[in-house]
């Protein structure tokens, strides 16, 4: 699974993208956030307020309870501020 981080989520995790093998017990985007947070450090910080983190699955906005699979591209980022 490819994971991308943007803006302050990227700054806190300290990484803009990574490839992981999806653990068996991770079913949803929220599960993935929990699993990433367990790594501690910047990850725990980035996801400490889960409501302020938006999720995209395969480049489409997705709710936190959406299922994720090992072939997905997942992105985590703050609310957008373009325009």
């Amino acid at each position, binding site marked *: 699974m490819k994971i991308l981080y943007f803006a302050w989520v990227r700054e806190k995790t300290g990484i803009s993208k990574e490839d992981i093998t999806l653990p068996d017990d991770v079913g949803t985007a929220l599960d993935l956030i929990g699993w990433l947070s367990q790594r501690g450090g910047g990850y725990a910080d980035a996801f400490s307020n889960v409501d302020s983190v938006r999720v*995209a699955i395969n480049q489409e906005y997705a709710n936190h309870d959406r299922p994720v699979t090992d072939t997905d591209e997942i992105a985590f980022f703050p609310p*957008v501020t*373009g325009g």
Partner: protein
Amino acid sequence: MIKVQLEDFDIGAEIEALRAGDTGIGGICSFVGTVRDMSEDATVSTMTLEHYTGMTEKALAEIEAEANERWTLSGSTVIHRYGELHPGDNIVLVVTASAHRQAAFEACSFLMDWLKTKAPFWKLESGDKGPNWVEAKSSDDDATARWR
């Protein structure tokens, strides 16, 4: 037509390109968003725009398609820059052309509201108070909610 680019754009040239040869057009509305030298209580010397390559293009195409579904437009242009910008620089351009002025105005306003809340861009401001990620405004959510 949508473009996501590092380079600046020429507003007059984009308007001319959109209308060229179409005498069914009655009005052309454009909006340019620019970098301000102040943000809340801090000065801004640099604004860096980060975006999600791939998703940005998809989101912009969807937003443009939605506008063309809601209004009868002769054409529309959306250009959004990324990278390092400075006060006075262009950030975003929306141009809409239609037989009727109200459609051109509304579609242009709609596109800007949606860009603010749907397009995956993030603004990092630097100035006298150090770097600061611009926070999403609830007023932008409210503006977008008008169109539901």
